[in-house]
């Protein structure tokens, strides 16, 4: 069993077997990052570049660290100080990067589908690190890894995704990923932040937080994305917090051993209370650690050799 693809662009068309391979490969990778010597020589001689057209702390740093732990050479292209500011087109920027000899590119872009376009036009392998409101596959994979590590399985779990579903690539990737494992997925948020057509993905929509989290095993809280709120989607952050903020009090309806996930960065007092964010129930920090392991697994599976028969 291996990853039979050049790129990782989303979880939508990833098979259950491929998803399991990535999650299982991340287990020995996590062992590596928990050791004193956090480095293996596996990807010596390989080069990767992170190209982020949107800001990021954890995703970019964690890809870079994952590459370094596996001995790949990693470079960050900082778009704000690059020739993109002189008007270089996306295609020309990508070509320039490609001919420098990189094997793999990690890309984030505000416009959905950009990594797909790039992947079709380069010999480099491409990992989508978030494209608009479409997908953020590595975030969903690390969420799934975190859940599986704590619960032992993903099979049939009840998972609630709370908040701005409309703008959330994290929600979309989680829905695609978790539904491969027969999870009962519920989404909840203000009606204006719920996209149409969710039923087609096999997801139940709720507008009441209490109803949505009744008896759930996992709550994945999304960040209210102020940068994507055009305006008027909800009256105020205060009102949002009143209705949808998770706190130890609102959590009471969920199972006692409910796991609380948040992709970060968190808005304290908006979608999650400070008290809950700092509690043992919240796995926000473990998610970040697991993110490095998941990205190491992907880098290994995509650059770790033994795959010459894949055609580009």
């Amino acid at each position, binding site marked *: 069993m291996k990853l039979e693809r050049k790129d990782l662009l989303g979880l939508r068309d990833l098979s259950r077997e491929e998803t399991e391979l990535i999650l299982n490969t991340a287990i020995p990778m996590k062992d590596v990052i928990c050791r004193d010597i956090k480095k293996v*020589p596996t990807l010596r001689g390989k080069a990767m570049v992170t190209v982020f057209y949107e800001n990021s702390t954890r995703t970019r740093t964690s890809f870079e660290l994952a590459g370094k732990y596996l001995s790949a050479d990693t470079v960050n292209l900082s778009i704000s100080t690059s020739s993109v500011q002189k008007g270089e087109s996306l295609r020309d920027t990508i070509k320039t990067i490609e001919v420098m000899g990189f094997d793999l590119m990690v890309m984030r872009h505000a416009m959905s589908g950009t990594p797909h376009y790039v992947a079709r036009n380069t010999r480099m392998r491409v990992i989508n690190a978030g494209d608009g409101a479409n997908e953020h596959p590595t975030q969903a994979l690390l969420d799934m890894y975190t859940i599986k590590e704590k619960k032992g399985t993903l099979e049939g779990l009840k998972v609630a995704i709370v908040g701005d579903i409309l703008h959330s690539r994290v929600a979309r990737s989680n829905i695609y990923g978790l539904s491969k494992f027969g999870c009962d997925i519920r989404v909840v948020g203000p009606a204006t932040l719920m996209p149409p057509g969710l039923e087609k993905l096999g997801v139940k929509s709720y507008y009441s937080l209490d109803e949505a989290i009744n008896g759930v095993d996992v709550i994945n809280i999304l960040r209210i994305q102020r940068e994507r709120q055009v305006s008027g989607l909800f009256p105020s952050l205060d009102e949002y917090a009143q209705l949808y903020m998770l706190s130890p009090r609102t959590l009471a309806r969920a199972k006692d051993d409910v796991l609380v996930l948040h992709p970060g960065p968190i808005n304290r007092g908006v979608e999650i209370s400070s008290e809950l964010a700092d509690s043992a129930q919240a796995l926000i920090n473990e998610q970040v650690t697991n993110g490095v392991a998941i990205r190491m697994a992907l880098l290994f599976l995509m650059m770790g050799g033994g795959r010459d028969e894949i055609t580009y």
Partner: protein
Amino acid sequence: MVLREKHAIMDEMGMKRALTRIAHEIIEKNKGVDNVAVIGIRRRGGPLAQRLALRIEDIEGIKIPVGILDITLYRDDLTTLAQQPQVHRTEVNFDINGKRLVLVDDVLYTGRTVRAALDALIDLGRPECIQLAVLIDRGHRELPIKADFIGKNVPTSRQENIEVYVKELDGKDGVVIQEIIDS
């Protein structure tokens, strides 16, 4: 690759006797097993290491630590393999610093697996020494590596293959030599 079995080199009893002798040799060479631990190389080195630890316990009455090493991330042939190997966990749940380690594998051939295993071990800590125990040494070394404990020396040609079966993974014990008739 098509393989034809030529003949059996060791049966269940033969394997048992070889492991018992190696256990005695490990005890003798290390003047006891106070500071000794065994680490098997995945996959068949794992069960063999377990068995050696049990034999040593039978003889000396001391339980020694046992670990399993996965060397996938340290292989030097990843880019040339047709199939990417799956990475498994390394399970060494004791501190190897200052330990006298016995690395265990089923077959010693080119020495490249052992080279990878040595690198993997050094990343886990600084043992006092590392010794090597193998069930079969079939020659054809490509690196300056030599076993300290050998179950059986079996001269082979490169057109042959040695297959070790262990009950834990294969349902039976034994060693056979196979001929590669079509590659």
